[in-house]
């Protein structure tokens, strides 16, 4: 019995890891087709007005855009394998460096948003499911729908207009100018993630400054997925409350509150882990909007800037990085899920 279980888990993980390769390949191909095969080439899109035709053609040849498509496709795939995502047109930076310098801000924003969403969403969902069709359920469900229905930039607008000023909270950037300057001057930016760096530095002024900047953007982004957690936990509670083992526990005379706490709640939370992986994709999309709203120096903000510059290489590189991140996160979630729930492995 134990043998077959421990035997199938590694096999499942191996299968899942092997599946990542075609998955990434398909996404890369999709990105390539959308951005490269489409009419209009990157060089004239970015530098069209600035150089004459001859100079444009030289640039195109130098960058390989005059090669046959199949050759370009191969070059693209092999450079991604070497983790080389190219150099941007507009500001001549390595895409990987852009990712390193700005990815940290996106990471801390999404992590903080996740924490806020879980802290708000799970308790609210439990209450709504437990007291189905009562006033708290209706209020919580409407709240859940509203958090989903309100666009990020509208929530951001409301927070900036009505909350930021009275509380004296900043609405732009990830940290004050001083913090950024001194952190860099004193060589304290070890991890390139400002949030982690300030905690490592142990300076309470920097920590406070960074957390203050983080609060409103993280709340805005967190509210977006908080509604998803409310809905999910609520539906799961409804379904587990109808299951046989809950009925059996009730039949044995265990009090309703104990049954919900000890039997229903726990099992209702398992699917949340699966959905966290799916939410990551939603969160990345939301991060782009949150970063624009709060002028947050993250990858999404850079992506929008490069799009406005029509910098194909940068857009392609950043999108590729996002895609790989999503696939890897979903791999991680599937493995964690298989560890927790044995049914997934078979």
């Amino acid at each position: 019995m134990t043998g077959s279980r421990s035997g199938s888990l590694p096999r499942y993980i191996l299968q899942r890891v092997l599946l990542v390769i075609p998955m990434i390949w398909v996404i890369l191909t999709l990105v390539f087709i959308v951005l490269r095969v489409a009419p209009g080439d990157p060089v004239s899109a970015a530098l069209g007005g600035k150089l004459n035709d001859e100079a444009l053609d030289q640039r195109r040849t130098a960058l390989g855009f005059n090669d046959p498509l199949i050759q370009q496709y191969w070059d693209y795939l092999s450079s991604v394998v070497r983790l080389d995502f190219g150099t941007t047109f507009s500001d001549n930076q390595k895409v990987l460096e852009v990712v390193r310098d700005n990815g940290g801000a996106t990471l801390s924003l999404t992590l903080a948003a996740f924490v806020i969403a879980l802290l708000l969403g799970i308790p609210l969902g439990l209450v709504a499911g437990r007291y189905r069709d009562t006033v708290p359920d209706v209020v919580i469900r409407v709240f859940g729908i509203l958090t989903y229905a309100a666009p990020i930039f509208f929530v951001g607008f409301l927070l900036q207009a009505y909350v930021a000023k009275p509380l004296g909270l900043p609405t732009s950037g990830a940290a004050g100018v001083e913090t950024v300057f001194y952190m860099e001057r004193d060589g304290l930016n070890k991890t390139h993630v400002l949030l982690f760096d300030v905690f490592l530095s142990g300076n309470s002024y920097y920590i406070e400054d960074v957390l203050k900047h983080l609060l409103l953007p993280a709340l805005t982004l967190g509210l977006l997925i908080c509604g998803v957690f409310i809905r999910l936990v609520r539906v799961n509670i409804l379904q587990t409350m109808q299951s046989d083992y809950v009925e059996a526990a009730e039949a044995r005379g265990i009090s309703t509150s104990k049954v919900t706490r000890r039997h229903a709640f726990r099992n209702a939370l398992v699917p949340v882990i699966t959905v966290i992986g799916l939410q990551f994709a939603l969160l990345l999309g939301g991060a782009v909007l949150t970063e624009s709203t709060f002028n947050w120096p993250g990858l999404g903000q850079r992506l929008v800037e490069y799009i406005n510059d029509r910098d194909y290489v940068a857009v392609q590189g950043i999108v590729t990085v996002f895609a790989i991140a999503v696939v890897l996160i979903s791999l991680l979630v599937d493995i964690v899920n298989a560890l927790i729930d044995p049914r997934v492995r078979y």
Partner: protein
Amino acid sequence: MRKFLKILAKPFTETAGLARWMLVIGLAITAVFVILAIFAPLLAPYGFAQASADGVKFPKAGAPSGDHWFGTDRLFFDVLSRVIWGARTAIEVVILSIVICVAVGVPLGLVSGYYGGWVDRILVLIMDAMFAFPSFLLAIVFSFLLTGLLGGTVLAVALSLSAIYVPQYFRVVRNTTVSAKEAAYVEAARAIGASDFVIMRRYLFGNVVQSVPVLGTLNAADAILTLAGLGFLGLGIQSTDAAEWGHDLNRALADAGSGIWWTGLYPGLAIVLLVTGLTLVGEGLNETINPTLRRRRLLPVVMSGPAAREER
């Protein structure tokens, strides 16, 4: 005709309590916006890019007043008019993108599920990859490309939105086709010599499209948000071509700190209301169609004898 009405009334007759209320409220909200969209030229006091009337220039970022109920923005435009015209843009884009999604996703799903084999495998792989990709990023990439090709038109944005939702329709239709094609009535049809096309059109189609309306309304809600998001980033419809709520909010963001609340509040509320309305319709339909969530109206059970207990 009666049968059709019966199907239409099904969500109302089969739901009770909260689910029914959600459905009714959702339909009412959606209807208001559809009316605004259809009659925008009659209902809006001014044009969406009109900065003066009768030779008098509108105030710049003027507060709400008798002439301008929702105030005016920094470009001298009337906010109320832009909100009403924005409903037309939103509904146009959403209807167009859902039509594209159904027209592409349903046939692909039917063919893929019915024939199976390597075509099915490749399509599933592509669709899964698209589905796994962060949908808003997908929309950004597609609109980056399509607005480059077609300009910031309704069609370009609708196509970018379709790219996100086609995989969902494909998936649902394909999976139901795979299970439905094993049914006895399909085998019977095949036995009497029906061609593959006839089987798909007459026998499978009706059975696999049932979940499309729910998907459609829920996607419509999401599409409104995505459209506004693209507009906010400046990747959607150009503001001189049409009024678009997301783009208006982008311009309003600069006002947030300076006490000018009306330029952002009203377009934002319009988005929230319409998305809420569509979500309520979708959820109401979902509770009707998904039997695990459905709570039918129960008739009280009267049991005789001393052991009679109230039904739970």
